[in-house]
């Protein structure tokens, strides 16, 4: 097909490549307040209502279906929960008296509160629209005190980090994104490595663990706190597989995460001020 190799076509293709590389470069080099980053926040804020509308309407359909499908179970569970509430109320009463006693004793010994960071609950309103990214949009933003770089957890397990914030929404890159990298520590051996995502749902890869390491299946992995990007000690997952390539200086370690990244609905944003200066541009 001679049309394929015309000069005009070559020019168009070269123009497209040049233009996209120019945008890519500007996006990489500009800071947080650059025009493309601002445009990204605008697009996120503009699509958030549509994402929220679809998410909430689908949630109602799912809830309705669950209700019909599990009516008997729900009734039984309801009876059981009522009994449990009674017991829990009793326990809460006991705990409150213990809490007040604890507060009084802490004041006496000037004990530093262990819970250093407060957290903001958020709903997931947007899921990744592309196969190449693993990120979600949550319904909290700058207005709720959310800031760029804050860690996001589910049930005490780290699931991601806030990377974009607008007034009422924020985008969270999940740990299984290929761009994600978290400095972690193996709790038993104290070795430090980097957990990377590979777009697998509940699997991450732990890199830079020495081939002499005694790391084994079942070892817990927590954030190391190095670099100040994440607070130290947040649960990441446990080692599910350890293997060794004869050509590599490092072990190949897979981490199993107790959270299903594809089904996140509610998350907690930890109000931790990162030591990393995000205003200096993209990493």
């Amino acid at each position, binding site marked *: 097909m001679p049309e394929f190799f015309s000069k005009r076509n070559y020019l168009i293709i070269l123009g497209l490549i040049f233009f996209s590389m120019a945008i890519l470069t500007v996006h990489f080099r500009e800071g947080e307040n650059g025009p493309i980053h601002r445009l990204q926040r605008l697009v996120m804020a503009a699509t958030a209502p549509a994402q929220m509308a*679809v998410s909430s309407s689908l949630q109602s359909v799912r809830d309705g279906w669950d209700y019909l499908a599990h009516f008997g179970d729900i009734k039984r569970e309801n009876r059981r929960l009522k009994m449990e509430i009674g017991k829990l109320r009793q326990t809460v009463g006991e705990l409150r008296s213990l809490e007040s006693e604890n507060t009084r004793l802490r004041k006496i010994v000037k004990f530093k509160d262990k819970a250093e960071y407060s957290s903001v609950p958020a709903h997931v309103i947007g899921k990744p629209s592309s*196969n190449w990214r693993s990120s979600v949009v949550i319904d909290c933003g700058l207005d709720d005190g959310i800031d760029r770089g804050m860690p996001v957890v589910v049930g005490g397990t780290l699931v991601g980090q806030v990377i974009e914030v607008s007034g009422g929404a924020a985008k969270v*890159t999940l740990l299984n994104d290929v761009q994600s990298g978290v400095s972690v520590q193996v709790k038993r051996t104290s070795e430090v490595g980097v957990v990377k995502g590979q777009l697998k749902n509940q699997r991450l890869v732990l890199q830079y663990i020495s081939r002499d390491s005694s790391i084994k299946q079942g070892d817990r992995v927590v954030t190391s706190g190095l670099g100040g990007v994440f607070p130290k000690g947040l649960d990441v997952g446990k080692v599910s597989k350890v293997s060794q390539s004869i050509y590599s200086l490092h072990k190949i370690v897979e981490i199993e995460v107790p959270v299903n990244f594809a089904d996140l609905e509610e998350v907690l944003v930890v109000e931790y001020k990162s030591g990393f200066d995000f205003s200096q541009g993209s990493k």
Partner: protein
Amino acid sequence: MLRAFQSLLVIVVTFIFQAAVVPHISIMGAKPNVILIVAALYGIMHGPSAGALAGFTGGLLCDLLSGVYVGLGLLSKSLVGFFAGLVQRAIFVENIILPMAAIFAATGVSELVYVVFLFLLGETVPLKLLIVNIILPTAIYNALLTPFVYASLRRFMVANQDTPAVRIAEKYN
């Protein structure tokens, strides 16, 4: 001018669909790329420039929403739209299997272009994993969605624009 506005409307609506609905219709983790389908179909129906422009606009919007690498999706989608336009005469026939096959191939090419640039930018994800978990399922899903997107787009074009391509589409309906 009116046609350009209508085309922009199609791209924006497709983008909103991609952002809000597509995440909920993934099958085994694979999400269709409706923007890519529309860009390729624009190329097939209106020629290389329209295809490239549709891919460029849709790709840019998608990159702005989900991309860390703003510019990569734009490139792969506009190239697909452009090449789809170049082979428009070979593909534009009554048999829907051909556009489906074209979209299958276009998705594969587009995703491979994306992967090549990801590797150039230093991302290290096993290629086998990408092909098995992302590229192949997405290409199949896109191909299966093509008749529906094709029908909707053609209906919109027939109602709003009287292009020779649409007349051929109408003739084979």
